[in-house]
Each structure stands twice: as C-alpha cells, then as structure tokens.
C-alpha cells in the first residue's frame, strides 16, 4: 500500500512539472493533485527533492536492473528514450540540483554497470581491484559527462546519437584496456 502512495505522489509531481518549474511546486500542490493530506506526503518524504530522488532511483533501478553484456547498448538507448519522454522532469531536476549532486547521482548507477562490464572482460580477473576501480571511474566520468552536457544543452533528440557512439566506443575499448592493465600489472 505504501509504495502505491509513493507512486501516486510521483505521478502528481510529474504532472505538475509539465505546467511549472520544480522550485515553484509546493508539497500542498502535490497533495492537492493527489488527493491526500500533507501528513501523508511527509510520512514518506522529507520534501519535494526527496520525492525527486525517489523517482530517479526507482526509474534507474528499473532500467538498469537486468542489464548484461549483451543488452547494455540497448538498455542505454532505453534510458535515453525514457529521459526524453520525461523531458520536463529531467530538465527540472537538472536545474534544481547542483552539478555535483547530479554527477554523484548518475555515477551511483553507471559505475556498477561499468564495473560489471570490466568483470566480464577476458582478463578481468588479472587486473588489480584498484586498477579496475580506476578504469570504471574513467568510463563513468565519460558517460556521465556526455549525459549531463546533453541535458544542459536542452536534450535535443538529434544530439542523442552521441550515446550510440559512446556505447560503441566503450564496448570495444573496455576489453582492450582490461588487457592492457592485466599484463604485466603495475607497469605504468
């Protein structure tokens, strides 16, 4: 029952975001739209930003849940599509969070995905954990950087092709860099 309430509040926020910006939306606006009282909202969330974070977490978890070596380019595509469907929510989130907060949030999801890719590479086991983390950091920063720049410049559909290029690049390159760091370890 509780998740239902959270989902209903999330739907109300998304609906309101098509009409006004995040900082102009009050908890009262959301609860009026949803037909619950402020108490119910605050039972679940600290404030509007807490609800935003909940939405992001829910959706990203859903999208990155069953990702594997084969489907990850397609999953990335779906993440981008979903972001474009929810453009007003994503743009509003972008403008209401600091760049640092957004980076950290996206990194939290992208980093494990990249790590999983590195683990699957042929020589994955031969790479030191600290090197593996370094390689995952590199790829995560690249992906998150491209993503946030795309959002910042207005999420133009024609610019989303760049993600295809990133996925294409990482797909080949991860195996290569893992090999490079596997033998002989520590030659840098």
């Amino acid at each position, binding site marked *: 029952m509780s998740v239902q309430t959270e989902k209903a509040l999330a739907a109300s926020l998304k609906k309101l975001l098509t009409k006004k910006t995040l900082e102009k939306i009050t908890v009262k606006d959301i609860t009026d739209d949803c037909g619950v009282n*402020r108490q119910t909202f*605050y039972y*679940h969330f600290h404030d509007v930003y807490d609800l935003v974070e909940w939405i992001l977490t829910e959706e990203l978890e859903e999208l990155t849940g069953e990702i594997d070596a084969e489907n990850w380019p397609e999953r990335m595509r779906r993440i981008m599509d979903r972001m474009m469907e929810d453009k007003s929510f994503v743009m509003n989130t972008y403008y209401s969070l600091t760049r640092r907060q957004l980076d950290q949030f996206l990194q939290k999801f992208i980093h494990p995905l990249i790590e999983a890719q590195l683990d699957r590479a042929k020589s994955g086991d031969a790479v030191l954990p600290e090197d593996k983390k370094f390689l995952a950091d590199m790829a995560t920063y690249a992906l998150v950087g491209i993503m946030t720049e795309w959002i910042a410049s207005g999420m133009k559909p024609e610019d989303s092709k760049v993600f295809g290029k990133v996925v294409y690049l990482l797909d080949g390159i991860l195996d290569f860099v893992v090999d490079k760091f596997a033998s002989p370890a520590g030659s840098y």
Partner: protein
Amino acid sequence: MSIVGNEIKRLGLMSMYEFLDKDPEENLPKLVDWLDSYIHPDVLKVQRQLFREIIEKKDSNWYQLLVSLWSDIDDDVRKTLFENLIINANALAAETAEKSRRKYDCNIPWVILITLDKEHGLDFDAWDDVIEQAKSLGTFAFVFQGHNLLANKEEMIALCNKHADCEFMVCTTGRYLDDDYARQILRVKNLIVALNVTGTDADRALDRPTEILRRFKLPYAALIQYDRGNQERFATGSFFDCLIEHGVKMAFFLSSMPVEGDHVWEKIQEFRKTKPIMSINFCKDRELIGGCVAGGRYFCAIDAKGNLQPCFFVHDSDSNVCTDTLLHGLQSPVFQRYHVDGEPECLAIK
C-alpha cells in the same frame, strides 16, 4: 552566523564525528579537546566538564555506557543523533536562541513538549507550523506525549521525517510498538522512545518493546514519574538493575517533591557513581540541567488544544498556539515570570 558559516561549521563537526566513529575509544578524548575549542566556553560548561571526567576514567561505569553507544546503536541513527542533538540543537541553535532571547526579550526553550491527540487535538499541519516557528527561534528538540501515541503512527513519523534536522522523543507505554514501528523509526532516525516505567508488575510488559528496540538497535530511555506515595518502588538497586538489564541507557525521573525526603534522588546520586545508566532528575539535578528549566528557560509544554504551559507540573496558561504565535506565548505574562536573572520562584515543588 551566516548560512554559509553554519554550513562550514556543520561540515567541520560532521567530519569530526566520522573521525570519532572510526575508532571511538582512541578518538573520543581528541574530540572532546576539539569541541572545547569549538563551542563557546559558556555553552554546556558543566556538562562538558563532566564528560571529560567520564572519558578519562576508562574502567568507570560511565565509560562502559559510552562505549555501548557504539556496540548497541545503529550507525546511522547514532550519526543522526549526534548531528541533530549536538550540532543542530546545541552548537548551531545556541546562537540563534541567544539572539532571539535578546531580540524578543523572552526565554527560548531548548525543548518543547507536544501533546498529540488524534481525535480532539491539533493536526499535523498545525504542529508542523509550531515546529517551524520554534526552529526559527532556535529550538530543535521536541518531545511527544499523549494517549495511545503509538496508535497514531503516521502523524508522528511524518513530523519527524519532515523535520529531519530536529531530534524527537516519544513518551509511551510501548504497548503498540511493533516491528513495523521500529522499522519506521529506523528509517527517520531522529526519534527516541522513552518508555513509561511504573515500578510495578506492569513493567513486565516492557520486555516486549525493549526486545524490539534492542533488535533494531534503536536508542531508548525510561521515564519515571514519582511522588511521596510511590517513591519506594524506585529507590532501590534492583529497580535500577532492572532498567540496565532491559538495555535502558538513560532514565528521566520527574517529581515535584522537595529535596528533603526524596529517596529516589538520594539513590540516583549514589548509583550515578557505580551503575552504567545515565539518570537525570527533574528538577533536582539543578547543576547538571542548569537550575529551573520551566517557563521556556529550557522547557515548555503545549497541550493537545494548543495551550502553552510553562512547566511539566504547572499548567497555567495565558496563550494558545492556534490563536497566536509561539513567540507571543513565550512573551506572555505567565512565561515572563520565568524570564528573570537567577532562579525564578518555583511554583511546582509542594
């Protein structure tokens, strides 16, 4: 201090906490040195001195109690407790409260007792507004009381969740406490349960709530009200031992008896030297709690109907938070009696 200044102060204090959390036994003395240089010398002077004595005697009952805060309490709850109680309610709020005190020429309480009553009392929005007003004046600690409090879970958890920068305590028999309740407290992290203890066979009912609270690694306290008639139930070593066995780390004793003939108060002072439990007596612990706390000096109460009352034992009221602001209530004649230099005349002890 400015908002930016406070943010820097908070970051400094939190990084200190993280340092302490890594190795409490090793780093605690260093933390106390550091706090002494950080907080104004007059803020909590007696308390900090006492704290220093505790950490310097490693074989003492107090030291055992302190170390148990790390072994028995959830890491995030302990961190929130530190952030809300030490940083927000004291280090940062003290300046705001002092400014308000001077500006408005009235007392600003450290803690406000809120009486919840689902059927006949103020609702969430009204209490939320009172808490917002209190925070702007410099109060960041609140205690809930009321009948069947745990049966009205949503309102209380919602208030805690919204005011994540405040520390809350709920006084309850614990009868309605269950796993889901404990789970919600663990989620919001800023609610301490204070269990009413009667010193009779009824206390056996405490086995259940204390088992739950202990399992979820939540901090809890005991609340004991006594008078001439029932004081002998509490003035024994076995009563204190029973609290300790139930995992109680802090006991609040409340009584309006005079010092002479108060046997509980005698025992509290005796056991404080030997037993690993922190007992505080209102209002006999004048040195520890800074004299009379009433009239907003440290404490005030609001009943279910919104009447502002000066003391746990004195229910006079000439203001109501439904019809006027909290500030005007604190400036009202009933509260001004307590806004004096030195000790106000006590209207409670009879």
